[in-house]
Protein backbone atom coordinates (compact mmCIF):
# COMPACT_ATOMS: atom_id res chain seq x y z
CA UNK A 1 0.00 0.00 0.00
CA UNK A 2 1.64 3.22 -1.13
CA UNK A 3 1.77 6.19 1.14
CA UNK A 4 0.17 9.34 -0.25
CA UNK A 5 2.56 12.03 -1.41
CA UNK A 6 3.83 14.58 1.10
CA UNK A 7 6.67 17.03 1.64
CA UNK A 8 9.22 15.85 4.16
CA UNK A 9 11.19 17.84 6.71
CA UNK A 10 13.61 16.59 9.32
CA UNK A 11 14.24 19.49 11.72
CA UNK A 12 17.34 19.51 13.91
CA UNK A 13 15.71 21.09 16.94
CA UNK A 14 12.30 21.22 18.59
CA UNK A 15 12.18 24.98 18.00
CA UNK A 16 12.69 24.40 14.29
CA UNK A 17 10.00 21.69 14.31
CA UNK A 18 7.53 24.02 16.06
CA UNK A 19 8.27 26.79 13.56
CA UNK A 20 7.58 24.46 10.64
CA UNK A 21 4.32 23.32 12.24
CA UNK A 22 3.17 26.91 12.77
CA UNK A 23 3.96 27.65 9.15
CA UNK A 24 2.21 24.55 7.83
CA UNK A 25 -0.95 23.96 9.91
CA UNK A 26 -1.68 20.86 7.85
CA UNK A 27 1.67 19.21 8.70
CA UNK A 28 1.86 16.16 10.98
CA UNK A 29 4.56 15.14 13.40
CA UNK A 30 6.16 11.71 12.91
CA UNK A 31 7.78 10.09 15.95
CA UNK A 32 7.80 6.28 15.77
CA UNK A 33 5.41 6.22 12.83
CA UNK A 34 3.52 3.09 13.85
CA UNK A 35 0.18 4.95 14.12
CA UNK A 36 0.46 7.81 11.64
CA UNK A 37 1.84 5.81 8.69
CA UNK A 38 -0.89 3.17 9.00
CA UNK A 39 -3.57 5.88 8.96
CA UNK A 40 -1.89 7.50 5.96
CA UNK A 41 -1.83 4.22 4.07
CA UNK A 42 -5.56 3.99 4.75
CA UNK A 43 -5.94 7.57 3.48
CA UNK A 44 -7.72 8.70 6.64
CA UNK A 45 -4.88 11.09 7.33
CA UNK A 46 -3.31 12.88 4.36
CA UNK A 47 -1.05 15.64 5.66
CA UNK A 48 0.68 17.81 3.05
CA UNK A 49 3.89 17.63 5.07
CA UNK A 50 5.57 15.23 7.50
CA UNK A 51 7.81 16.69 10.18
CA UNK A 52 9.99 13.75 11.20
CA UNK A 53 11.44 13.93 14.70
CA UNK A 54 13.73 10.95 14.02
CA UNK A 55 16.72 13.26 13.73
CA UNK A 56 16.33 14.60 17.30
CA UNK A 57 18.55 12.83 19.78
CA UNK A 58 18.01 14.80 22.99
CA UNK A 59 14.44 13.68 23.73
CA UNK A 60 15.42 10.09 24.46
CA UNK A 61 15.99 9.63 28.21
CA UNK A 62 14.60 8.44 31.53
CA UNK A 63 16.08 10.45 34.40
CA UNK A 64 15.31 11.34 37.98
CA UNK A 65 15.71 14.85 39.37
CA UNK A 66 14.16 16.84 42.24
CA UNK A 67 11.60 14.22 43.15
CA UNK A 68 10.44 13.81 39.56
CA UNK A 69 10.95 11.10 36.97
CA UNK A 70 11.32 12.78 33.59
CA UNK A 71 10.98 10.81 30.38
CA UNK A 72 11.75 12.31 26.97
CA UNK A 73 8.83 12.06 24.55
CA UNK A 74 10.95 10.25 21.95
CA UNK A 75 12.01 7.51 24.39
CA UNK A 76 10.93 4.26 22.80
CA UNK A 77 8.49 2.07 24.70
CA UNK A 78 11.00 -0.78 25.02
CA UNK A 79 13.48 1.52 26.71
CA UNK A 80 10.76 2.81 29.04
CA UNK A 81 9.74 -0.60 30.38
CA UNK A 82 13.33 -1.88 30.47
CA UNK A 83 14.40 1.05 32.65
CA UNK A 84 15.15 -0.44 36.10
CA UNK A 85 13.31 2.29 38.04
CA UNK A 86 10.21 2.11 35.86
CA UNK A 87 10.21 -1.70 35.94
CA UNK A 88 10.51 -1.84 39.72
CA UNK A 89 8.74 1.26 41.02
CA UNK A 90 6.23 2.21 38.33
CA UNK A 91 4.79 -1.20 37.39
CA UNK A 92 1.63 0.28 35.83
CA UNK A 93 3.74 2.18 33.29
CA UNK A 94 5.98 -0.83 32.61
CA UNK A 95 2.96 -3.10 32.13
CA UNK A 96 1.21 -0.61 29.85
CA UNK A 97 4.29 0.10 27.70
CA UNK A 98 5.04 -3.61 27.29
CA UNK A 99 1.46 -4.37 26.26
CA UNK A 100 1.46 -1.99 23.28
CA UNK A 101 1.21 -3.77 19.92
CA UNK A 102 4.00 -6.25 19.29
CA UNK A 103 7.68 -6.26 20.23
CA UNK A 104 8.37 -4.40 16.97
CA UNK A 105 5.92 -1.63 17.83
CA UNK A 106 7.53 -1.33 21.27
CA UNK A 107 10.93 -1.07 19.59
CA UNK A 108 9.77 1.61 17.15
CA UNK A 109 7.00 3.43 19.02
CA UNK A 110 7.73 6.30 21.40
CA UNK A 111 6.13 7.24 24.71
CA UNK A 112 5.05 10.66 23.43
CA UNK A 113 3.74 9.19 20.20
CA UNK A 114 1.73 6.59 22.08
CA UNK A 115 0.02 9.31 24.14
CA UNK A 116 -0.71 11.39 21.03
CA UNK A 117 -2.12 8.53 18.95
CA UNK A 118 -5.30 8.93 16.95
CA UNK A 119 -8.63 7.76 18.27
CA UNK A 120 -10.02 4.61 16.68
CA UNK A 121 -13.30 3.44 15.19
CA UNK A 122 -14.45 0.46 13.13
CA UNK A 123 -15.63 2.89 10.41
CA UNK A 124 -12.40 4.93 10.43
CA UNK A 125 -9.50 2.46 10.71
CA UNK A 126 -10.24 0.79 7.39
CA UNK A 127 -8.88 0.90 3.88
CA UNK A 128 -10.21 3.46 1.43
CA UNK A 129 -11.87 0.63 -0.50
CA UNK A 130 -13.65 -0.70 2.61
CA UNK A 131 -14.81 2.77 3.57
CA UNK A 132 -16.08 3.52 0.03
CA UNK A 133 -19.23 1.49 0.72
CA UNK A 134 -20.53 4.31 2.95
CA UNK A 135 -20.45 8.09 2.85
CA UNK A 136 -17.18 9.47 4.20
CA UNK A 137 -17.43 9.70 7.98
CA UNK A 138 -17.03 12.98 9.87
CA UNK A 139 -13.58 12.15 11.20
CA UNK A 140 -12.31 11.19 7.75
CA UNK A 141 -13.57 14.46 6.26
CA UNK A 142 -17.28 13.86 5.53
CA UNK A 143 -20.42 14.61 7.50
CA UNK A 144 -22.03 11.60 9.19
CA UNK A 145 -20.94 9.59 12.19
CA UNK A 146 -21.90 6.00 11.39
CA UNK A 147 -21.69 5.08 15.07
CA UNK A 148 -24.02 7.80 16.39
CA UNK A 149 -26.06 8.02 13.14
CA UNK A 150 -25.82 11.80 13.34
CA UNK A 151 -23.96 14.49 11.41
CA UNK A 152 -20.97 16.53 12.51
CA UNK A 153 -20.07 14.43 15.55
CA UNK A 154 -17.46 11.73 16.09
CA UNK A 155 -17.50 8.94 18.63
CA UNK A 156 -14.15 7.36 17.83
CA UNK A 157 -12.50 5.86 20.90
CA UNK A 158 -9.15 6.62 22.51
CA UNK A 159 -7.36 3.26 22.75
CA UNK A 160 -3.85 4.10 23.95
CA UNK A 161 -2.44 1.75 26.60
CA UNK A 162 0.01 4.12 28.25
CA UNK A 163 -2.31 7.07 28.96
CA UNK A 164 -4.37 5.43 31.75
CA UNK A 165 -1.20 4.22 33.47
CA UNK A 166 0.31 7.70 33.38
CA UNK A 167 -2.98 9.25 34.52
CA UNK A 168 -3.06 7.18 37.71
CA UNK A 169 0.62 8.02 38.30
CA UNK A 170 -0.43 11.73 38.26
CA UNK A 171 1.82 12.47 35.29
CA UNK A 172 2.21 15.86 33.71
CA UNK A 173 3.48 16.62 30.23
CA UNK A 174 5.66 19.37 28.83
CA UNK A 175 4.29 21.04 25.71
CA UNK A 176 6.83 22.98 23.68
CA UNK A 177 6.00 25.73 21.25
CA UNK A 178 7.89 28.52 19.57
CA UNK A 179 7.17 30.78 22.53
CA UNK A 180 8.67 28.35 25.04
CA UNK A 181 7.37 25.39 26.96
CA UNK A 182 4.80 24.79 29.69
CA UNK A 183 4.02 21.86 31.95
CA UNK A 184 0.38 20.79 32.19
CA UNK A 185 -1.50 17.84 33.70
CA UNK A 186 -1.61 14.95 31.23
CA UNK A 187 -5.39 14.81 31.53
CA UNK A 188 -5.73 18.33 30.12
CA UNK A 189 -4.31 17.42 26.70
CA UNK A 190 -7.21 15.08 25.92
CA UNK A 191 -10.13 17.05 24.48
CA UNK A 192 -12.83 14.39 24.55
CA UNK A 193 -13.69 15.47 20.99
CA UNK A 194 -13.54 12.50 18.62
CA UNK A 195 -12.49 14.44 15.55
CA UNK A 196 -9.65 16.33 17.24
CA UNK A 197 -8.73 14.27 20.32
CA UNK A 198 -5.77 16.39 21.46
CA UNK A 199 -5.81 19.90 22.94
CA UNK A 200 -2.56 20.97 21.30
CA UNK A 201 -2.21 24.50 20.00
CA UNK A 202 -0.83 25.02 16.49
CA UNK A 203 2.93 24.54 16.55
CA UNK A 204 2.92 22.70 19.88
CA UNK A 205 4.73 19.39 20.41
CA UNK A 206 4.61 17.15 23.48
CA UNK A 207 8.26 16.87 24.50
CA UNK A 208 8.45 15.37 27.99
CA UNK A 209 6.49 13.25 30.45
CA UNK A 210 6.94 14.08 34.14
CA UNK A 211 5.95 11.67 36.91
CA UNK A 212 6.16 12.65 40.60
CA UNK A 213 8.34 10.19 42.48
CA UNK A 214 5.64 9.94 45.19
CA UNK A 215 3.66 7.87 42.67
CA UNK A 216 6.36 5.20 43.05
CA UNK A 217 5.34 4.79 46.69
CA UNK A 218 1.97 3.20 46.02
CA UNK A 219 0.80 0.00 44.39
CA UNK A 220 0.10 0.32 40.67
CA UNK A 221 -0.92 -1.93 37.83
CA UNK A 222 -2.31 -1.89 34.30
CA UNK A 223 -4.61 -4.60 33.01
CA UNK A 224 -5.76 -5.09 29.47
CA UNK A 225 -8.16 -7.34 27.62
CA UNK A 226 -7.58 -7.68 23.88
CA UNK A 227 -8.67 -10.12 21.21
CA UNK A 228 -5.12 -11.42 20.85
CA UNK A 229 -2.73 -10.99 23.75
CA UNK A 230 0.09 -10.52 21.28
CA UNK A 231 -0.63 -7.45 19.26
CA UNK A 232 -4.07 -5.86 19.58
CA UNK A 233 -5.39 -2.60 20.90
CA UNK A 234 -7.33 -3.03 24.14
CA UNK A 235 -11.03 -3.90 24.11
CA UNK A 236 -10.79 -2.32 27.56
CA UNK A 237 -7.75 -1.34 29.61
CA UNK A 238 -7.66 -0.27 33.26
CA UNK A 239 -4.93 1.24 35.41
CA UNK A 240 -5.10 1.41 39.19
CA UNK A 241 -2.86 3.15 41.75
CA UNK A 242 -3.47 2.86 45.49
CA UNK A 243 -1.64 4.16 48.50
CA UNK A 244 -1.72 2.36 51.82
CA UNK A 245 -0.48 5.41 53.70
CA UNK A 246 -3.09 7.92 52.48
CA UNK A 247 -5.93 5.51 51.67
CA UNK A 248 -6.16 7.11 48.23
CA UNK A 249 -6.98 5.29 45.00
CA UNK A 250 -6.67 6.49 41.44
CA UNK A 251 -8.32 4.60 38.59
CA UNK A 252 -8.25 5.26 34.85
CA UNK A 253 -9.67 3.44 31.84
CA UNK A 254 -8.90 3.31 28.14
CA UNK A 255 -10.90 2.24 25.09
CA UNK A 256 -14.15 3.28 26.78
CA UNK A 257 -14.63 6.87 25.59
CA UNK A 258 -13.25 9.55 23.28
CA UNK A 259 -10.47 10.14 25.77
CA UNK A 260 -8.83 8.12 28.55
CA UNK A 261 -11.04 8.47 31.62
CA UNK A 262 -10.15 9.04 35.29
CA UNK A 263 -13.08 7.63 37.29
CA UNK A 264 -13.27 10.31 39.98
CA UNK A 265 -16.64 9.31 41.48
CA UNK A 266 -15.34 5.82 42.10
CA UNK A 267 -12.13 7.23 43.56
CA UNK A 268 -14.17 9.41 45.94
CA UNK A 269 -16.27 6.41 46.91
CA UNK A 270 -13.16 4.37 47.73
CA UNK A 271 -11.41 7.19 49.58
CA UNK A 272 -10.50 6.17 53.12
CA UNK A 273 -12.29 2.83 52.75
CA UNK A 274 -10.32 -0.25 53.52
CA UNK A 275 -10.11 -2.24 50.31
CA UNK A 276 -11.70 -5.63 50.79
CA UNK A 277 -14.06 -8.00 49.02
CA UNK A 278 -17.03 -6.11 50.39
CA UNK A 279 -15.99 -2.57 49.53
CA UNK A 280 -15.09 -3.43 45.95
CA UNK A 281 -18.38 -5.29 45.38
CA UNK A 282 -20.19 -2.32 43.86
CA UNK A 283 -17.37 -0.85 41.78
CA UNK A 284 -18.66 -2.11 38.43
CA UNK A 285 -21.83 -0.05 38.73
CA UNK A 286 -19.89 3.10 39.55
CA UNK A 287 -17.33 2.60 36.78
CA UNK A 288 -20.05 2.22 34.16
CA UNK A 289 -21.53 5.64 35.03
CA UNK A 290 -18.33 7.50 34.29
CA UNK A 291 -17.74 6.47 30.70
CA UNK A 292 -19.62 7.04 27.50
CA UNK A 293 -19.41 3.75 25.69
CA UNK A 294 -20.42 3.68 22.02
CA UNK A 295 -20.36 0.90 19.43
CA UNK A 296 -17.20 2.18 17.79
CA UNK A 297 -15.59 -1.26 17.79
CA UNK A 298 -16.97 -4.72 17.09
CA UNK A 299 -17.49 -5.35 20.81
CA UNK A 300 -20.90 -4.63 22.27
CA UNK A 301 -21.42 -1.96 24.89
CA UNK A 302 -22.71 -4.42 27.46
CA UNK A 303 -19.68 -6.67 26.94
CA UNK A 304 -17.29 -3.76 27.38
CA UNK A 305 -19.19 -2.61 30.46
CA UNK A 306 -18.80 -6.05 32.05
CA UNK A 307 -15.11 -6.24 31.16
CA UNK A 308 -14.53 -2.78 32.58
CA UNK A 309 -16.02 -3.70 35.95
CA UNK A 310 -14.15 -6.99 36.09
CA UNK A 311 -10.82 -5.41 35.19
CA UNK A 312 -11.11 -2.71 37.84
CA UNK A 313 -12.20 -5.27 40.43
CA UNK A 314 -9.34 -7.57 39.61
CA UNK A 315 -6.82 -4.71 39.75
CA UNK A 316 -8.21 -3.60 43.13
CA UNK A 317 -8.04 -7.17 44.44
CA UNK A 318 -4.40 -7.26 43.43
CA UNK A 319 -3.93 -3.95 45.26
CA UNK A 320 -5.29 -5.54 48.45
CA UNK A 321 -2.54 -8.13 48.27
CA UNK A 322 0.06 -5.57 47.26
CA UNK A 323 -0.57 -3.14 50.11
Amino acid at each position, binding site marked *: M*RLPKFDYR*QPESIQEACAILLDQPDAKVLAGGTDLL*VNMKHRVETPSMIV*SLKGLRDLDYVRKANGMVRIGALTRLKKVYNDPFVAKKLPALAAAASSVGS*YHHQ*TMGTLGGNLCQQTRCKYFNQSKWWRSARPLCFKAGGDPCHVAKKDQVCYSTYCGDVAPALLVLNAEVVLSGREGSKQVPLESIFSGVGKTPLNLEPGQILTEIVIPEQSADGFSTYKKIANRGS*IDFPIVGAAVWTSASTGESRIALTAVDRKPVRTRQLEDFLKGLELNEETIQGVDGLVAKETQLMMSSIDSISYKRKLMGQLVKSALSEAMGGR
Partner: protein
Amino acid sequence: MKQAIALTVNGDVYEVLISPNQTLLEVLRDKLGLTGTKKGCDLGACGACSVLLDGEAYLSCLMLAVDAVGKEIVTIEGLSEGGDLHPIQKSFVELGGLQCGFCTPGIVMTAKAILDEEPQPTEESVKKKMAGNLCRCTGYKKVIESVMSASGRMGGKQ
Protein backbone atom coordinates in the same frame (compact mmCIF):
# COMPACT_ATOMS: atom_id res chain seq x y z
CA MET B 1 10.27 15.63 -5.11
CA LYS B 2 12.85 12.88 -5.49
CA GLN B 3 15.96 13.05 -3.41
CA ALA B 4 19.21 11.09 -3.32
CA ILE B 5 19.96 9.28 -0.08
CA ALA B 6 22.63 6.82 1.04
CA LEU B 7 21.50 3.67 2.82
CA THR B 8 23.83 1.23 4.57
CA VAL B 9 22.42 -2.22 3.92
CA ASN B 10 24.25 -5.41 4.90
CA GLY B 11 27.48 -3.44 5.19
CA ASP B 12 27.28 -1.92 1.71
CA VAL B 13 26.42 1.70 1.03
CA TYR B 14 23.79 2.24 -1.66
CA GLU B 15 22.96 5.61 -3.17
CA VAL B 16 19.35 5.66 -4.26
CA LEU B 17 16.93 8.20 -5.67
CA ILE B 18 13.72 8.08 -3.68
CA SER B 19 10.52 9.96 -2.88
CA PRO B 20 9.83 10.75 0.80
CA ASN B 21 6.66 8.66 0.68
CA GLN B 22 8.58 5.45 -0.09
CA THR B 23 8.93 3.06 2.81
CA LEU B 24 12.17 1.30 3.61
CA LEU B 25 10.46 -1.95 2.52
CA GLU B 26 9.67 -0.56 -0.94
CA VAL B 27 13.20 0.72 -1.41
CA LEU B 28 14.79 -2.55 -0.24
CA ARG B 29 12.64 -4.64 -2.57
CA ASP B 30 12.03 -2.44 -5.59
CA LYS B 31 15.17 -0.28 -5.76
CA LEU B 32 17.85 -2.54 -4.30
CA GLY B 33 16.37 -5.85 -5.44
CA LEU B 34 16.64 -7.32 -1.94
CA THR B 35 13.41 -9.27 -2.21
CA GLY B 36 14.18 -11.58 0.71
CA THR B 37 12.33 -9.10 2.93
CA LYS B 38 8.63 -9.77 2.32
CA LYS B 39 5.64 -7.49 1.98
CA GLY B 40 2.79 -9.04 3.93
CA CYS B 41 0.06 -6.82 5.33
CA ASP B 42 2.10 -3.65 4.72
CA LEU B 43 0.39 -2.19 7.80
CA GLY B 44 2.65 -3.33 10.63
CA ALA B 45 0.48 -6.21 11.77
CA CYS B 46 2.25 -9.29 10.39
CA GLY B 47 6.01 -8.87 10.87
CA ALA B 48 6.95 -10.30 7.44
CA CYS B 49 8.92 -7.13 6.64
CA SER B 50 11.09 -7.24 9.80
CA VAL B 51 14.67 -6.06 9.31
CA LEU B 52 17.37 -4.99 11.72
CA LEU B 53 18.05 -1.29 12.24
CA ASP B 54 21.10 -0.76 14.39
CA GLY B 55 20.57 -4.31 15.65
CA GLU B 56 16.90 -3.94 16.62
CA ALA B 57 13.84 -5.48 14.96
CA TYR B 58 11.98 -2.86 12.90
CA LEU B 59 8.98 -3.13 10.63
CA SER B 60 10.32 -1.82 7.33
CA CYS B 61 6.78 -1.16 6.05
CA LEU B 62 6.27 1.46 8.77
CA MET B 63 9.61 3.16 8.31
CA LEU B 64 10.21 5.89 5.76
CA ALA B 65 13.32 5.07 3.75
CA VAL B 66 14.54 8.62 4.26
CA ASP B 67 14.37 8.10 8.05
CA ALA B 68 16.71 5.09 7.75
CA VAL B 69 19.65 7.22 6.58
CA GLY B 70 22.62 6.76 8.91
CA LYS B 71 21.34 3.48 10.32
CA GLU B 72 22.96 0.07 9.89
CA ILE B 73 20.31 -1.96 8.08
CA VAL B 74 20.56 -5.75 7.97
CA THR B 75 18.20 -7.86 5.87
CA ILE B 76 17.92 -11.63 5.52
CA GLU B 77 20.41 -11.44 2.62
CA GLY B 78 23.05 -10.09 5.00
CA LEU B 79 22.75 -12.79 7.62
CA SER B 80 24.68 -15.67 6.08
CA GLU B 81 28.41 -15.29 5.66
CA GLY B 82 30.17 -16.41 2.49
CA GLY B 83 27.53 -18.99 1.64
CA ASP B 84 27.40 -20.42 5.16
CA LEU B 85 24.02 -20.18 6.80
CA HIS B 86 23.77 -18.25 10.05
CA PRO B 87 23.27 -20.51 13.11
CA ILE B 88 19.66 -19.28 13.35
CA GLN B 89 19.04 -20.27 9.74
CA LYS B 90 20.67 -23.67 10.33
CA SER B 91 18.36 -24.30 13.28
CA PHE B 92 15.28 -23.40 11.24
CA VAL B 93 16.36 -25.75 8.42
CA GLU B 94 17.22 -28.65 10.70
CA LEU B 95 14.15 -28.41 12.92
CA GLY B 96 11.68 -27.60 10.15
CA GLY B 97 10.88 -24.16 11.52
CA LEU B 98 9.21 -23.18 8.25
CA GLN B 99 6.50 -24.45 5.97
CA CYS B 100 5.69 -22.21 3.00
CA GLY B 101 8.53 -19.91 4.01
CA PHE B 102 6.90 -16.54 3.36
CA CYS B 103 7.07 -15.35 6.96
CA THR B 104 10.50 -16.91 7.52
CA PRO B 105 12.78 -13.97 6.65
CA GLY B 106 10.87 -11.74 9.07
CA ILE B 107 10.86 -14.43 11.73
CA VAL B 108 14.60 -15.09 11.38
CA MET B 109 15.43 -11.38 11.59
CA THR B 110 13.26 -10.97 14.70
CA ALA B 111 14.95 -14.06 16.20
CA LYS B 112 18.33 -12.45 15.54
CA ALA B 113 17.27 -9.26 17.36
CA ILE B 114 15.88 -11.27 20.28
CA LEU B 115 18.98 -13.44 20.68
CA ASP B 116 21.34 -10.48 20.39
CA GLU B 117 19.40 -8.71 23.13
CA GLU B 118 18.85 -11.79 25.28
CA PRO B 119 21.25 -14.68 24.39
CA GLN B 120 19.50 -17.15 26.72
CA PRO B 121 15.83 -16.29 26.51
CA THR B 122 13.10 -18.29 28.18
CA GLU B 123 10.53 -19.89 25.93
CA GLU B 124 7.94 -17.44 27.33
CA SER B 125 10.10 -14.48 26.37
CA VAL B 126 10.61 -15.82 22.84
CA LYS B 127 6.87 -16.35 22.46
CA LYS B 128 6.08 -12.85 23.63
CA LYS B 129 8.64 -11.17 21.40
CA MET B 130 7.79 -13.35 18.38
CA ALA B 131 4.08 -12.67 18.73
CA GLY B 132 4.16 -9.93 16.11
CA ASN B 133 5.40 -12.33 13.43
CA LEU B 134 2.42 -14.14 11.99
CA CYS B 135 2.73 -17.52 10.27
CA ARG B 136 -0.42 -18.46 8.39
CA CYS B 137 0.77 -22.07 8.08
CA THR B 138 0.65 -21.84 11.90
CA GLY B 139 3.98 -23.59 12.41
CA TYR B 140 4.64 -21.72 15.63
CA LYS B 141 5.74 -24.67 17.74
CA LYS B 142 8.67 -25.48 15.49
CA VAL B 143 9.49 -21.81 15.13
CA ILE B 144 9.90 -21.49 18.89
CA GLU B 145 11.91 -24.74 19.01
CA SER B 146 14.19 -23.44 16.27
CA VAL B 147 14.84 -20.16 18.11
CA MET B 148 15.58 -22.02 21.35
CA SER B 149 17.93 -24.37 19.52
CA ALA B 150 19.66 -21.43 17.83
CA SER B 151 20.18 -19.91 21.26
CA GLY B 152 22.08 -23.06 22.28
CA ARG B 153 24.01 -23.14 19.01
CA MET B 154 25.06 -19.52 19.44
CA GLY B 155 26.49 -20.14 22.89
CA GLY B 156 23.52 -19.53 25.15
CA LYS B 157 22.34 -22.39 27.35
CA GLN B 158 18.93 -23.90 26.87
